[in-house]
């Protein structure tokens, strides 16, 4: 269907949709950056930092776009550093603490596989700006998925200890994956406008990717949780506030400070 025949979503729906993507990349990037100087090996330290920088780069493009959509003159920095937790619309999954290296990579696998499917769909969507950002992010995401999947296979199919740790992390984090495919009025408006992909086929492709990795890693996929998390609606777990306190401290204490 040609984009011009589709109803334009309300400015608010588009803004919220872009903010959800932006905040998800930003918060996950910030989480990964916590590993810098602490990873099990220098090579992994750089690997995680590279992914963190990719994600923060995506967040910058998306936040700038969100600032323009909002039309109140807020920059990417204003949006990143001067909003409080309830105004962040990231997935609940990405704000979960790093835990050990295995848990960080379980979270990464779940998110990267989802971002891959999503960006693949968005690169041809009716919003040209979003399509452009998705096309760029897609290449980065392919590597993130390769990296995390490769580690999950090594750890899952590794020692009894590493297997137990990643299975345990998967069991704990799986409850947050329902939100990846939840559909509310924002998603419905963006779907109707030919921008957001429909959730059901997205979930099927995501699950196929995840199942393939889990099978090779000899891990068992946990049962779906019925509890609905609402990070995308601004309702967060307690972890986000602590993260933001650290991330935003400098701009809050010294407004407008620059390097």
């Amino acid at each position, binding site marked *: 269907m040609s984009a011009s025949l589709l109803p334009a979503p309300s400015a608010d729906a588009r803004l919220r949709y872009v903010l959800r993507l932006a905040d998800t990349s930003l918060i996950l990037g910030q989480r990964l950056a916590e590993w810098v100087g602490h990873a*099990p*090996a*220098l*090579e992994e*330290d750089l690997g995680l930092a590279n992914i963190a920088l990719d994600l923060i780069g995506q967040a910058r493009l998306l936040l700038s776009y969100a600032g323009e959509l909002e039309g109140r003159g807020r920059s990417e920095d204003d949006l990143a550093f001067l909003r409080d937790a309830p105004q962040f619309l990231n997935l609940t999954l990405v704000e979960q603490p790093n835990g050990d290296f295995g848990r960080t990579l379980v979270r990464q696998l779940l998110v990267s596989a989802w971002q891959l499917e999503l960006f693949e769909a968005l690169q041809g969507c009716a919003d040209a700006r979003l399509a452009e950002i998705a096309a760029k992010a897609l290449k980065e995401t392919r590597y993130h998925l390769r*990296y995390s999947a*490769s580690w999950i296979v090594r750890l899952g199919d590794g020692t009894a200890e590493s297997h137990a740790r990643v299975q345990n992390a998967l069991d704990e984090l799986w409850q947050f994956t329902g939100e990846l495919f939840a559909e509310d009025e924002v998603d419905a408006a963006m779907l109707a406008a030919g921008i957001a992909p429909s959730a059901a086929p997205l979930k099927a492709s995501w699950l196929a990717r995840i199942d393939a990795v889990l099978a090779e890693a000899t891990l068992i996929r946990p049962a779906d949780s019925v509890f609905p998390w609402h990070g995308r609606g601004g309702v967060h777990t307690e972890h986000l506030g602590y993260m933001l306190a650290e991330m935003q401290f400098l701009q809050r204490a010294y407004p407008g400070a620059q390097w």
Partner: protein
Amino acid sequence: MTAPDWPLFEVFIRARSGLEHKHAGSLHAVDARMALEHARDVYTRRLEGVSIWVVRSSEIAASDPLDADAFFEPARDKIYRHPTFYAIPEEVKNL
């Protein structure tokens, strides 16, 4: 950060198509696949390359520094092995 008990790999990067792979450094990894990923993360962050080779350092046979005299000294006085040693006659074209 503790150094993991992983074998050492040597990394070779090709900067552009058509150029040769050049030694870039070394890193630790469990196997070749991980070494390629590590090499990508450690040595190509600033667009240094378009292709990577990795090889386990233990697979490389190296000349012994103690053999340096026997290996390399004899070449020192053979200046006639350099093309610049020879004067090219005016009459010779296309050399």
